[in-house]
């Protein structure tokens, strides 16, 4: 069982840090950025409406920021296939932007949280475009 766990871990690590970005992996990264941005937007909506708890908003926004920053690092560290390099770079930049928005959300007041929700939704839509989603 230990051997299998090590094998699974190796496979996962290999999967996460794969050296090339093809259309499929770009799509998955775009889905991940979309997911985090959309979740951040929901959190920001609730912060704007006073429907959340401050500690939760701060900690969860930070956790989402960590997730999307890791995605950005993965994209930046991978070699994209010819023809996808520009989109991969744009997606990495977008992931960094989402991370910055989430950092701002950690301590935003209600008015700023409302603006951040809009920006995060725009980022989610942009991620869909870059990933080739309809």
């Amino acid at each position: 069982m230990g051997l299998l766990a090590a094998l699974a871990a190796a496979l996962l690590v290999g999967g996460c840090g794969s050296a090339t970005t093809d259309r499929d992996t770009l799509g998955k990264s775009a889905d991940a950025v979309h997911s985090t941005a959309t979740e951040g937007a929901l959190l920001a909506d609730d912060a704007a409406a006073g429907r959340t708890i401050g500690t939760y908003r701060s900690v969860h926004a930070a956790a989402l920021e960590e997730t999307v920053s890791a995605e950005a690092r993965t994209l930046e560290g991978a070699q994209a296939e010819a023809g996808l390099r520009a989109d991969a770079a744009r997606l990495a930049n977008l992931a960094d932007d989402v991370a910055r928005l989430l950092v701002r959300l950690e301590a935003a007041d209600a008015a700023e949280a409302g603006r951040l929700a809009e920006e995060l939704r725009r980022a989610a839509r942009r991620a869909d475009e870059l990933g080739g989603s309809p």
Partner: protein
Amino acid sequence: MRPIFQVALGILAAIGGFVDIGDLVFNVAAGAEFGFSLLWVVVVGVVGIIVYSEMCGRVAAVSKRAVFDAVRERLGFGVGLVALLAAQLVTFLTLAAEVGGIAIVLQLLSDLPFLALLPLAFLGLLAAIWFLEFEWIERLFGYAGLCLIVFVVAAIKLEPDWSSVAHGFVPQIDTGDPLVYLYFAVGLLGAAMTPYEVYFYSSGAIEEGWTPKDLGLNRLNTFIGYGLGGVLSFALMITAGALFLPQGIRPELIGTVALGTEVPLGQIGLLLALVGILFAVGGAAIDTCFSFAYNLAQFFGWEWGKYRGAARAPRFTLAWLVLLVLACGVIATGIDPVMLTEYAVIFSAVALPLTYLPILLVANDRAYMREHANGRLANVFGVVYLLVILFVALAAIPLMLITNMGQG
């Protein structure tokens, strides 16, 4: 009030076992990925855990044998030892994941650093196990974990398409990736029937001094406790299917699980969800801690039981204490508790047959069970579920590898 308190063991086993961190993660991830189409798997899992927990409780009440007594006796030392090692590895992984989960929820409630909260989680668990009587552990964690009912309210408030929900109770594989679907189905079954639930339940019955007179209570415990656990699992999956799936959100964090109540119910929903998760995961941590020590003591014939106290059961006490320290140590290294949970659930699926086969054998032994041995219905269910469990055990790791842990 007494009957309500008496079903506490079932409720704790259900809240702390059926709705532990593994179920929170798998049910919400399954709902976000496949909507309501895996609800039928929860039904299969609930019936399975009811069948085997009822058997375990009956065996404990009648023969005074807990699971690993039966394992040692029926499988022999060699195979029994393999079963013990598999069970202990899975129980340890699960405990580590639960401890990490507790620290994360405390962080969401306090905004203090994770590593500062880990010792607090450790001390809280230690104090609860050391100072509270067994019955009060059940009551505190079982009933406080009932705050998770807020997910039922959230699921209703989100106004899902109820015809689609109903359709989800019918088995179907009409999804984009059948292997990922199967991976989630296996994970949900593994999470629902995770072995430590029955270790804890059967040993708990002996801790409480059950006799054949308590067989009615045993049935009540399993039906109410695990039935309730099933309802909460439905609610988690429906919430994720109604809220996260349409928006393309793939939950990877425990905080996301709680967001499922914040969006429809606001602050109060969020607070109840976080408290419910804290106590459910805390209860599961205590279940796993005890289960590890129960298994070891029963297999090697040591004195065991919380009711005996540390002085009369020193090796049992040392076992859970050391395990708790090790689990906190593992989480302090920075391992992601959610990732650990997924491994724990999948590996627990592999260990299922080694746990459930000896129970079925002992429950059929009239020398121990006399007139309380399995009837025809219990055996039909027992054998059918053993076959399901065998399939799950064989398929779990290949599916995990092929689907990259459900990532496709």
